[in-house]
């Protein structure tokens, strides 16, 4: 370096002595002077003149008129002069194509110069002269240079092929240069290999389908070897090329990864990023349970973090790339949160990017730290940054539920600062928090309302108005607040006007008495005085709704809103995959695919991540439904539509007219299936007719499954009375309890899933329910009500769901039932229609209970009475049933049945047949008598025969169902 400083000093002695003087000559008639000087005999003068020409060219003056004179200077043995002339040629050849031919001879000659520097210079310049006419003359010299003995010339020639291809692709193909280029991949010199790869990749981009870079394990191996030896830039070409290769299997993928990972320790960040790209891409093929996969994940984090110690511009590029990587594989950097903390002196573009990554990495584990940081940032002065920090707090609340409360209180603290834009931003995000956790943080509304006057940005005003409208019933002066906005209605932005219109309509629907005037005012403002079609249309729709059917209006305007999603502004997965393939390029900085910003055909191929090896995914989740389907053979029962009856259910609190109630979907009859097929059937046996609920019920199946399956072996083992121990939790009586089935799928009930079963315990009927919250918000205020039914079943007390039900939480409730409710005969007889209400809505479903639920404990008839009654009931009331394939002997059967309050009054043995005489009493006092015949002699004959006699013969069938159910379980 010393020589350089000496030189600078020497040159610094007098500025007249330096080249900068060339920039100062700007006289008129200069061209003439230069022309004369260029044609001078004196070498020195000539060179001075060329320098002046180049200087003028650099500052943008047109010196193309001097073309012939400059070209004349080309034939010189002075390297510096030659370079300058070549520079001139590159600039002006295009505008003077005819003149440019004059230079061809010199090029051809220079390509045979003994000095490799001159040969390389000639071949490099040749390619930059974008004149069609010349190109064909250049093929011969280029061919020679591609085979030059000096690697410096070869590597330059390799690039020249790409240049030539850009000018005339056909020529390059015809001349066979592409094959020569391919041969250079096997060159002994790593730099030549690298440039050949670079040239081929460049050419391949404009030929998407050509198999130019015929990548196979052999060439890959060559490239990986060259990778260790060539310069940093060469390494990048090779790595980028490797990234386009698709390994055949995970083994090959791993072995390439192993050879690429050392590059992560390279000092050049571009090499590191290219290596990261290759690894991210090939990782896709590695099975996640592979040890190496974990190792690779661990290896990726440190180099990415180190990229952040570079200059801010580089940091920015690194952060944009990390942003992609974090979205694709958050596990890589999950422990590195603190490196993204913003420093005071970071440039704004680095700060904003860091903030974005911080939110993406936020999790329950680090949320406390993150919030403390965000709060710190929110008190800075840079408005954009502060706003984004406040927004980030809101996003944390939405992303990490456990932190929501802390986020809200942080936002309240920030509102107290009274810094205008902080307050406004905070209100905007609080609105989002309300959307995510409805009915949870409304206590802060009062504080928000205090700041109403300071809101001057449309987004904040709109957010505040939304909040007031949405929670109008809890804000005493909601009408005043909204009215205050209404005064300057026409000066507001559309966003605010629309919000205001909706909010006032909401208010009216909630407090119709006091706000009639207000709503009329806003409707007329929106419909009559506004030019905005959106506003007008919305106004008209509200108006008509309100005037024709207020109830419908309520349903429309106050409908439950979908919860906002957890992660906002995520990149769409296929785009993300494509961007991962472009790590380290401009595409990864813009987060746009190259096709979005590159003109023409170059580089717009869509890249894809390789598919994972092996069949993988589908095998990982065995389909429960399939396993179960074999058992299913019970016919699906269809509930007749009973819309007229449902009306009775609807007096809960909204009282919408009957016509608005959706008919009970047939897929909700899970309870019925349950009885018929013993629980399992219901999973698949339900009305398969394209019901979307099927998926849900399958998904919900495991909840009920284990209990049912667990019970089965116990029965099969002949354990008799013990069977019920496996049947369900908390069973005290010996009655059979079917496993819980899904009665109300979550997708039909805005995220609430209800499954349940019935049980009779110590003489009390219970409805055992499981409520699962599959929505994103908390559910509260549960209530239940039954429609009139055949046996007068009714809740004996209120539904006890004491705590709010958080997302993904399940609560089990046992609801005692009485049989003293209103009676109405149902079809089928054991059908029960239920309405469940929560803070969100009212949901309806129907289920069927086993009639054995109604068998009372004192149902054992005296023998004499039995005989008399049997005779007394007319024989047309007797029904015959067969219970097939039952391997129980009479004692076991008798014991089992007794557990469900079917009492054996007497037993008789005739020949090879046991006859059990049994009695049952229903809650409403109806007696049923049964005769059960069991074959004892013949082991092959396992069918039982059942005769049921009852004064109400329609019950018989249900009694038979109970026998089936009890004896088989």
């Amino acid at each position, binding site marked *: *370096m010393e020589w*350089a400083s000496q030189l*600078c000093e020497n*040159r610094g002695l007098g500025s007249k002595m*330096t*080249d900068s003087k060339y*920039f100062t000559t700007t006289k008129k008639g200069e061209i003439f002077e230069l022309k004369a000087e260029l044609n001078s005999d004196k070498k020195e003068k000539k060179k001075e003149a060329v320098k002046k020409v*180049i*200087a003028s060219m*650099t500052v943008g003056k047109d010196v193309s008129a001097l073309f012939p004179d400059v070209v004349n200077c080309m034939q010189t043995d*002075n*390297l510096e002069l030659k*370079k300058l002339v070549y520079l001139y040629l*590159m*600039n002006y050849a295009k505008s003077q194509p005819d003149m440019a031919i004059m230079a061809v001879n010199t090029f051809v000659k220079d390509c045979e110069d*003994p*000095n*490799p520097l001159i040969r390389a210079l000639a071949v490099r310049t040749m390619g930059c002269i974008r004149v069609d006419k010349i190109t064909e003359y250049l093929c011969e010299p280029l061919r020679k240079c591609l085979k030059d003995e000096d690697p410096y010339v070869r*590597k330059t020639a390799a*690039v020249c092929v790409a240049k030539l291809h*850009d000018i005339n692709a056909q020529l390059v193909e015809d001349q066979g240069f592409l094959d020569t280029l391919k041969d250079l991949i096997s060159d002994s010199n790593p*730099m030549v290999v690298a440039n050949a790869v670079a*040239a081929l990749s460049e050419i391949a981009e404009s030929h998407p389908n050509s198999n130019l870079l015929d990548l196979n394990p052999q060439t890959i191996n060559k490239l990986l070897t060259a990778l260790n*030896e*060539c*310069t*940093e*830039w060469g390494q*990048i*070409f090779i790595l980028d090329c490797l990234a386009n290769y698709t390994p055949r299997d995970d083994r090959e993928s791993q072995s390439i990864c192993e050879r690429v990972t*050392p590059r992560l*320790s*390279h*000092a050049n*960040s*571009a090499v590191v990023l290219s290596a990261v790209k290759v690894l991210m891409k090939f990782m896709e093929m590695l099975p996640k349970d592979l040890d190496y996969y974990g190792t690779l994940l661990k290896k990726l984090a*440190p180099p990415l973090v180190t990229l952040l*110690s570079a*200059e*801010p*511009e580089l940091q*920015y590029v690194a952060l944009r790339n990390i942003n992609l990587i974090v979205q694709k594989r958050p596990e890589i950097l999950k422990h590195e949160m603190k490196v993204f903390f913003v*420093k*005071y002196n970071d440039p704004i573009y680095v700060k904003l990017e860091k903030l974005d990554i911080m939110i993406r990495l936020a999790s329950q584990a680090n949320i406390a*730290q993150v919030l403390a*940081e965000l709060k710190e940032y929110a008190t800075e002065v*840079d408005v*954009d940054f502060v706003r984004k920090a406040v927004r980030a707090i809101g996003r944390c609340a939405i992303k990490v539920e456990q932190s929501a409360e802390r986020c809200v209180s942080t936002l309240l603290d920030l509102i107290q600062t009274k810094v205008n834009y902080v307050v406004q931003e905070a209100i905007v995000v609080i609105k989002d928090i309300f959307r995510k956790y409805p009915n949870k943080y409304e206590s802060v509304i009062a504080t928000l309302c205090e700041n109403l006057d300071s809101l001057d940005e449309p987004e904040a005003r709109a957010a505040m108005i939304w909040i007031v409208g949405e929670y109008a019933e809890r804000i005493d002066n909601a009408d005043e607040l909204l009215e205050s906005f209404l005064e300057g209605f026409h000066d507001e932005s559309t966003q605010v006007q629309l919000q205001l219109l909706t909010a006032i309509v909401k208010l009216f629907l909630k407090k119709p008495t006091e706000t009639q005037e207000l709503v009329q005012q806003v409707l007329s403002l929106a419909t009559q005085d506004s030019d905005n079609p959106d506003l007008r249309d919305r106004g008209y729709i509200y108006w008509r709704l309100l005037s024709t059917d207020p109830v419908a209006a309520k349903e429309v305007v106050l409908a439950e809103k979908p919860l906002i999603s957890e992660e906002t502004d995520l990149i769409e997965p296929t785009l993300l995959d494509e961007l991962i393939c472009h790590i*380290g*390029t*401009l*595409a990864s*900085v*813009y987060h746009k695919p*190259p096709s979005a*910003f*590159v*003109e023409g055909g*170059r*580089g717009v191929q869509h890249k894809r991540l390789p598919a994972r090896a092996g069949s993988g995914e589908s095998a990982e989740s065995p389909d429960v439904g399939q396993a179960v389907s074999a058992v299913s053979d019970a016919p699906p029962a269809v509930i007749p539509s009973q819309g007229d009856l449902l009306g009775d259910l609807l007096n809960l609190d909204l009282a919408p007219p009957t016509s608005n109630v959706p008919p009970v979907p047939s897929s909700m009859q899970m309870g019925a299936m349950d009885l018929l097929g013993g629980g399992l059937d219901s999973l698949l046996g339900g009305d398969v007719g394209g019901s979307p609920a099927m998926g849900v019920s399958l998904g919900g199946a495991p909840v009920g499954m284990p209990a049912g399956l667990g019970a089965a072996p116990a029965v099969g083992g002949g354990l008799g009375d013990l069977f019920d121990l496996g049947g369900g939790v908390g069973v005290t009586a010996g009655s059979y309890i079917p496993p819980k089935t899904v009665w109300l799928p979550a997708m039909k009930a805005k995220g609430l899933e209800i499954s349940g079963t019935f049980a009779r315990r110590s003489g009390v009927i219970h409805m055992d329910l499981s409520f699962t919250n599959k929505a994103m918000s908390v559910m509260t205020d549960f209530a239940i009500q039954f429609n009139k039914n055949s046996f007068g079943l009714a809740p004996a007390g209120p539904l006890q769901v004491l705590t709010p039900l958080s997302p993904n939480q399940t609560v089990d409730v046992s609801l005692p039932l009485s049989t003293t409710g209103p009676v109405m005969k149902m079809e089928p007889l054991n059908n029960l229609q239920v309405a469940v209400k929560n803070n969100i809505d009212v949901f309806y479903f129907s289920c069927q209970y086993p009639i054995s639920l109604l068998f009372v404990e004192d149902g054992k008839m005296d023998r004499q009475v039995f005989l008399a009654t049997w005779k007394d009931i007319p024989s047309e009331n007797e029904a015959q049933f067969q219970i097939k394939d039952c391997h129980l002997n009479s004692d076991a059967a008798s014991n089992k049945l007794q557990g469900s309050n079917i009492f054996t009054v007497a037993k008789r043995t005739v020949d090879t047949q046991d006859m059990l005489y049994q009695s049952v009493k229903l809650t409403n006092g109806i007696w049923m008598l049964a005769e059960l015949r069991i074959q004892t002699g013949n082991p092959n004959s396992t069918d039982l025969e059942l005769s049921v006699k009852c004064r109400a013969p329609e019950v018989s069938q249900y009694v038979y169902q109970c026998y089936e159910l009890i004896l088989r379980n």
Partner: protein
Amino acid sequence: MTVLICRNYKGDVDMSEIDHFLTLLMQQEEEGLMCPVISHGSVHFMWIKHILYYFDCLFTSVCLSFVCMFPVQVFTEYFKELEEESIQDNFVVVYELLDELMDFGFPQTTDSKILQEYITQEGNKLEVAKTKVPTTVTNAVSWRSEGLKYKKNEVFIDVIESINVLVNANGSVMSSDIVGSIKLKTMLSGMPELRLGLNDRVLFALTGRDKGKTVAMEDVKFHQCVRLSRFESDRTISFIPPDGESELMSYRINTHVKPLIWIESVIEKFSHSRVEIMVKAKGQFKKQSVANNVEVRVPVPSDADTPKFKTSTGHAKYVPEKNLVVWTIKSFPGGKEFLMRAHFGLPSVENDEMEGKPPITVKFEIPYFTVSGIQVRYMKIIEKSGYQALPWVRYITQSGDYQLRTNA
């Protein structure tokens, strides 16, 4: 804005596109959202601010993002200072360099030492002598020329560790890490083969030796001369060094370190009257060590006036153009504690503009000491001529990005 120099590599960009650049940049600056990558239509600009000059790279197609850093580095090494004058003075060389650095948009050689071998400013003298391409340009060892000779063969090794610390206003350390760098000045003849031994924890675990203190390096970056695959397989750092000065490796250590100089500050602002600042600095390092040239920079409001200082050691100075009090302590022994008090007046009419909360920053240097405890165990030098060479090692720890947030 004037274009000092321009080289169009692919011929697919119209040179007048650059005119849009400044407009776009100004626009972004006004919006407060500057970004080092800007696009205009199908043309993309990347810029780096170097003093007051913008270096632009224009692209139309997908391109490597790191390209534009390097010309700046190379030029700086060539001309020591990169300014308008130095480019104009040497525009011929600059063009030559641009030619060699990149061809058709493909970066080629960016090692200035090698470039200097065949691109010189003395072009007007030499015409015949320079007829050979240095083999280094295309060699596997592209960073060292053959045939170097020194009378005395020596290697100087500098181990420099910078500490980055971010401390919250309540005194908790938010993040701290050490960025180390091992720099070489090699004056060795021929093509020597070097091996550097450090007390690297992974290496010691591999070889089963666990004597003494070891250091776990979180991430290591090497000069291209180091055989990366060798390091990957057995943690050996082996290389043929570049001649003269170079950075052999850098490393990052994540382990939590006690901030070497701890600052406690009380900044009390009494609106319309005064600001009172009390800063206590404590050396949290070994008593035998001494921190040199310690500077504690404390931010003050921009409208502060009439400074008064009191220090227990060193001296404090008000730098109004940076809104700072700089407290300088020439020599700060470990374990000691010093105090500085400052008092400023505030005008009765308050400044409307919101001011940020710049942190207190600290600068220092502690020689003969590395905070991580990293040590050069050996440096083996083998050359086929068999000469004896001496390695010299120097350690120094300095402040990197050392920030302590304040409450005021």
